[in-house]
């Protein structure tokens, strides 16, 4: 099963790369269905190719990593993964909203069946209800747009949009934003996301974070640039609102991540925060380059991190930071890979994460949105805390249990995809403009200004440039020097056999005496007022109240159906009198 799956992934990626330049299109007229003049179809374009590349690549990486576990561990996943990927390809390649909706629904439902065996009933219901709400909002939006444009194609949708009344435009925009924000997990709509990520099959979480959330971004790009024309003056307030929602998402999710003890929940919040940056600059004219760049880097880094975490969970059977620690000696490869991952995630030079953050910052600066810029920087810097917590909790410090002292390095099937991704991230770090020509073809397609490009080592922006190769070389030299000194010091040190007993004086640490530093890291931020507020608040109370309200309404309405025939006929009489009065009018 998994061999077929891997082959399919490889095949789709190979097909994609070999036909990268070719144009292909296929249209169907829906007159047969009674929808006269409605054409649906698929077409390759620069934008869809880039997103398809992300899908194909992630699919392949996840498939390779799956060889590490026992044969039937992910059987449900592999039954559905090809279908899911097909739906995603449909989403990115279609040129109309009908097929987009079909892909969107199939994506949601297929993900449901993948999630079903592992999630708790409550988390599962939460996931699907948000997915259904998103899909229905999308459907309603599409139908409204359709009523204006009388066609479902993206290219005609802008004209149709202008035909709608101001009020309908607003409703349409809200519906579509809701649909995509749910998938992205923008703050307030992320209620389903963290539980689903945390409880899903570890490899599927990788796919969810790397690819499925990007579909929301793709939908937003299409809707906001092709249909609404968000950068025009009419929609300035909307654009600003979206930017604020994005940055709020980033700030809140970053602090939620700092508090988390569970690995996958931490990364889920981190995912929300990163997508928040993307949403922020999506609303800014000139930010599209950063959107694509950051989406690309985020996909790669989340693949790397989630596969790393999956390997650690598979190795130790522990999924909490407070239960891990000191694995650096046992799993050095994983440590180095995670280190690369968190450097990228934090957006620090010299790796690829800096390039994308650089574009994010410069586009905000260029748009003179200083308040939002400072909020983004604040979130980004605060993000250092959770990425440090991640690497410290797993690999550094002391082990929290004897069993951690006796594990071996993780399976090579986990390491292969991670090394591939890490290599890509390093290369992009050294040659940050390497992917700019490809991104520029997309930007040209979207009618926005391309990123200036001269050589692949220098990433240019309106406000200046930075040479990735030089930075990388400088860092490499410093790194080698540091390594040399460490080696000198280390050679004099004595290798201790049993670190566990030394750390805990022969005692067994219990959950009541969590000596591992990773356990409480970041908790001191409790004293900062607004962080304490973020930590205390949750959207759960809102949704619980909503559910309660609906259920009490249900109980009340149930009383209409008393089952007592005599009293029920009162309804008939009331209805008849109502009709009579209404008719006499």
């Amino acid at each position, binding site marked *: 099963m998994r061999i077929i799956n891997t082959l399919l992934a490889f095949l789709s990626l190979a097909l994609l790369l070999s036909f990268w330049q070719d144009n292909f299109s296929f249209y169907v007229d829906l007159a047969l269905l009674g929808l006269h003049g409605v054409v649906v179809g698929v077409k390759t374009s620069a934008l869809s190719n880039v997103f398809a590349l992300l899908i194909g690549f992630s699919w392949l990486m996840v498939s390779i990593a799956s060889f590490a576990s026992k044969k039937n561990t992910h059987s449900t996943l592999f039954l559905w993964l090809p279908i899911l990927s097909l739906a995603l390809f449909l989403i990115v390649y279609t040129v109309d909203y009908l097929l987009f909706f079909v892909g969107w629904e199939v994506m949601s439902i297929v993900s*449901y069946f993948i999630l079903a065996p592992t999630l708790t009933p409550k988390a*599962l219901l939460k996931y699907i*209800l948000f997915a*259904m709400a998103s899909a229905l909002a999308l459907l309603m939006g599409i139908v409204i747009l359709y*009523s204006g444009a009388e066609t479902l194609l993206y290219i005609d949708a802008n004209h149709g949009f202008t035909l709608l009344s101001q009020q309908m435009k607003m409703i349409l925009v809200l519906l579509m934003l809701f649909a995509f924000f749910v998938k992205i997990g923008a703050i307030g709509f992320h209620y389903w996301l963290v539980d689903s990520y945390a409880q899903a099959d570890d490899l599927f979480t990788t796919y969810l974070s790397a690819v499925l959330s990007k579909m929301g971004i793709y939908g937003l790009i299409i809707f906001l640039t092709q249909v609404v024309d968000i950068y025009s003056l009419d929609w300035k307030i909307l654009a600003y609102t979206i930017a604020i929602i994005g940055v709020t998402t980033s700030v809140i999710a970053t602090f939620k991540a700092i508090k988390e003890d569970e690995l996958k929940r931490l990364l889920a919040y981190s995912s929300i925060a990163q997508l928040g940056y993307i949403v922020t600059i999506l609303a800014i004219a000139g930010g599209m380059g950063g959107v694509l760049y950051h989406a690309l880097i985020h996909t790669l880094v989340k693949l790397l991190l989630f596969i790393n975490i999956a390997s650690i969970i598979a190795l130790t059977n522990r999924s909490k930071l407070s239960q891990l620690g000191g694995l650096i000696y046992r799993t050095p490869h994983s440590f180095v890979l995670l280190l690369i991952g968190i450097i990228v995630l934090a957006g620090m030079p010299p790796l690829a994460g800096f390039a994308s953050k650089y574009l994010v910052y410069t586009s905000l600066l260029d748009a003179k949105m200083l308040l939002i810029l400072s909020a983004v920087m604040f979130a980004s810097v605060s993000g250092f805390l959770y990425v440090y917590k991640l690497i410290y909790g797993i690999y550094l410090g002391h082990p929290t249990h004897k069993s951690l002292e006796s594990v071996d390095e993780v399976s090579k099937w986990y390491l292969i995809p991670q090394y591939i991704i890490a290599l890509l991230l390093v290369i992009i770090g050294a040659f940050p403009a390497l992917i700019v020509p490809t991104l520029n073809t997309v930007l040209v397609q979207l009618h926005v200004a391309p990123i200036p490009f001269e050589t692949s080592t220098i990433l240019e922006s309106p406000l200046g440039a930075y040479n990735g190769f030089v930075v990388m070389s400088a860092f490499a030299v410093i790194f080698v020097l540091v390594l040399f000194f460490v080696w000198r010091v280390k050679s004099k040190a004595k290798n201790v056999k049993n670190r566990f007993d030394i750390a805990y004086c022969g005692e067994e640490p219990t959950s009541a005496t969590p000596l591992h530093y990773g356990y409480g890291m970041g908790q001191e931020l409790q004293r900062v007022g607004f962080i304490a507020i973020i930590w205390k608040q949750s959207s759960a109370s809102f949704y619980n109240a909503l559910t309660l309200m*609906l259920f009490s309404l249900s109980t009340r309405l149930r009383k209409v159906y008393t089952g007592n*025939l005599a009293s029920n006929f009162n*309804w*008939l009489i009331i209805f008849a009198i109502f*009709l009579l009065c209404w008719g006499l009018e």
Partner: protein
Amino acid sequence: MSSIYFIALPLLFGFATPIFAKFGKNGIAYSSVLLQASLFLLSIQLFVTMDKSIIEVIAIAPPLGIALILDNVSIFFVMLFTFLVLMGSLYYLKLREKNPYQNEAKFFILINMLLASAIGLVLSSDIFNIYVFFEIAGISAYILSAYRKTPKALEAGLKYLITGAIASIFLVFAIALIYLHLGTLNLALISQGFTALESDIKLLISLFLLIGFGLKVEIFPLNFWVTDIYEGSDAFTDAFFSAVVVKAYLFVFFHIVYLFLPHKEFTLFLLYLGAVSMLIAEIVALRQTNLKRLFAYSSLGQVGLLFVAFSMQEAVSITAGLYILLAHSLAKMVIFLSLASLFEKYKKEDISLFKEMNSPFLRNIIIISMLSLLGIPLLAGFVGKFLLLKSIAFSGLFVLLGLLVLASLIESVYYFKIIGFMFSKEERGEKFSLSTLQRAVLLTLTLGIILIGIAPFLISDFIATASSVMIDVRSYQNLLLGAN
């Protein structure tokens, strides 16, 4: 004259049962299935050989006598009903080995009566015959719902009888008024003369018709009796109530609305009535734990949706309505038939049955049917739902659109609650597998759902013509009057 067979043969079946009983224990059962299969084949043959939209007009002793019209839209219903009843009967062939009805000959007679009257309702084009079939369908349904003679079944039967009787009274008053003022019972003649009537009389007739049929088509607030009936009756008979009987009443009701009452205001009223009906049914269904009641509420919701579709009075929305109707009939047939087997096996009718259920086949087909009811793309339910929402948006009724979308969202809450139960990690009950015949029946229905979903264009021509015929009042009148 072939359309007569669809009504006459199932009715005559009752008189022939003593003969069929001579062929052994299974004689009646097999002959009933044979009859239904031949009727289905006959309808297929009529459909295939039809060249124009009109297939047959029969008028006996006009203008007061019997008139039957078999056109594009009625052949759709005839095919659907015969197919569904055939599938149900085939399913029952195995069901009866474990849990047969007492006095089976009577049961088969009733099922065939139900089929005959449902088809009769669709074909009749005079209001008196409609009344006759209305009553026959009612009587066979009352007895069927009380057939098990358990306290709940008897309660259901009695309630059904009383509500049915009240519905008939209203209908008969309406017919009497029509005859008094227009001197005819022929639908075409009534529709010609109706506009000239005094407005008070028109109002009274409309009111009586709406209440008489409203009780039968299960529209809010006249649907208070429905869930009790579904709960009391067997799941097997519920399949017919939900998939066949209601659909026949719906068709007749809207046929009459198109013919006499196509006022804009009245239509708008029906539209919102349908939407409210759907919304209320879905909200109430949220907390149901009894499966039969739950699916009864879901049926009420779908009927509300159909009400909206047919009330729009546009060819596109009627097309949508026919797609939804087809998808709903297939899905509800699958669900109720599976429930009939599951109830019999696990001896519980509670929602937790799905936690205990241990049958991948049944799980998968029930999930597919439910997703189709929710209108998920690539399944039959989506086509109709999309077309309906589209035509609502094109009419500018955005509030209605919002109501329907909200109702669909609430609907998904309890469907996915059930599907979640099927994936529950609790310990499963005994393994359960159906016989090959039953599997084949359910698989046929489910494949129908998938096929219509993936390739709706296979039947889109037929359904589009059917809907244009249904809305085209003028040619219906000409057709009927020409026959006179």
